[in-house]
């Protein structure tokens, strides 16, 4: 994972081409044609570098989860997302599994999905499925067919094994695939589910585009993800200290540049999605990180961590950074849902 993340992502107003690429000192005068040539060269080189970065990022993500999946499952069970808590509560790790289920149910409710399983979706795609916790839960809840995709072969293997062990092998299946190039034909799924995977996607526009492409007419799309705070109208970018904090977190968790909730909304609007709703669920997940840190300090979890390897250790050490980010209102835990028109 390189230190200079080229945020040449398209619609994200937090990102600008790096000045040094344009080979000129601020304030110097250049004629229009030279500026254009330089800009084109810069964009091409940036795109090339971005593709190489994306390749490295994907590899990093796959390896990170290959390495840490077993430890994670040991400690947290088969869901790899945040739990939904009552704000200001002190929680212990034993509350966590129930809270993770609650997170799924609250997300479904927020999106307006019926509580009645017979009226629910029949085919679901779980984008960034981890070891398949959400898929298996949704398969059970709605008697639906769920397909999960992940970059990590270890996770796909484990997900399929768990499905088989739980008698869900016919309803939930998992493969190694890229969320930016989903291996499904258009309009396959009634429910498109992305639970805490959006933050890994280097190209948010492409990510959202694929979510919409594989959604059937009338389908619901649910995205739960980490974003940074929405920028004020007068702001062009985050403050330098904010960017620095996010950068440190990026390196530990194999994350590309962050975007805001509003960025997602704009992408969905541009693709004509309807009934777009968002909420800031940061207060409901805030109790999670202190609980994680406390649990990581126990002997069992410490040895588990040490056994998993360097990438996982780096991830663990970044936990206080997440807490800082939440406390300073920089990091938001966001839910964004919408409907594809019939």
């Amino acid at each position: 994972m390189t230190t200079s993340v080229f945020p040449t992502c398209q619609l994200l107003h937090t990102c600008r081409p790096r000045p040094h690429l344009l080979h000129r000192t601020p304030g110097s005068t250049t004629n229009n044609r030279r500026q254009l040539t330089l800009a084109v060269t810069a964009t091409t080189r940036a795109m090339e570098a971005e593709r190489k970065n994306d390749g490295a990022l994907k590899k990093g993500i796959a390896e990170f989860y290959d390495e840490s999946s077993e430890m994670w499952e040991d400690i947290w069970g088969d869901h790899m997302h945040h739990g939904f808590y009552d704000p200001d509560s002190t929680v212990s790790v034993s509350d966590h599994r129930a809270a993770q289920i609650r997170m799924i149910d609250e997300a479904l409710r927020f999106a307006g999905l019926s509580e009645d399983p017979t009226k629910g979706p029949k085919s679901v795609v779980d984008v960034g499925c981890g070891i398949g916790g959400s898929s298996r839960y949704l398969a059970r809840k709605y008697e639906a067919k769920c397909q999960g995709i992940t970059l990590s072969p270890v996770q796909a293997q484990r997900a399929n094994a768990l499905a088989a062990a739980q008698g869900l092998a016919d309803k939930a299946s998992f493969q190694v695939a890229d969320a930016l190039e989903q291996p499904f034909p258009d309009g396959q799924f009634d429910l498109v589910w992305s639970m805490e995977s959006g933050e890994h996607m280097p190209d948010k526009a492409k990510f959202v585009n694929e979510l919409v492409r594989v959604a059937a007419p009338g389908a619901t799309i649910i995205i739960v993800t980490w974003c940074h705070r929405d920028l004020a109208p007068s702001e062009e970018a985050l403050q330098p200290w904010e960017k620095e904090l996010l950068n440190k977190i990026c390196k530990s968790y194999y994350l590309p540049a962050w975007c805001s909730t509003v960025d997602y909304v704009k992408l969905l609007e541009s693709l004509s999605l309807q009934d777009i709703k968002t909420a800031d669920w940061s207060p409901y997940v805030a109790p999670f990180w202190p609980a994680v840190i406390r649990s990581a300090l126990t002997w069992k979890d410490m040895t588990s961590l040490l056994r998993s390897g360097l990438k996982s250790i780096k991830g663990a050490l970044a936990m206080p950074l997440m807490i800082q980010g939440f406390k300073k209102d920089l990091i938001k835990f966001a839910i964004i849902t919408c409907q594809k028109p019939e």
Partner: protein
Amino acid sequence: MRLLTHNMLSSNIKGVANGFPLGIEVEKVIEKQVELSADFLRNLFPKIEWKALVDAARTMGYAELPEEVDSSMLDSNEFLTKFHHALLELHLEEGALVCPETGRRFPVTKGIPNMLLHEDEV
């Protein structure tokens, strides 16, 4: 990988107009019994691309599926058993899925298809 999954996968390589259905290269097929659920099969039936399923099953060594179907056949236990067997009980453990237009192979290892594209296919 079951044929149910195969029926939902398509090749997303840049420039490919129709990436479905993927061809199957068989190296190892295993059969795993699983309980038949008539309701599940009836719910799934409309979503299945039937020809792709028949062809895929034949490649995996199962030729019992009828070429032509209609929904009235869902009342026949005999049909449901065959449908169930082809869709859910045949597993491609090792082999590959093949893009119908470019011939590109997506390997299947330990039952998991790897659909990741290379940098130049994106």
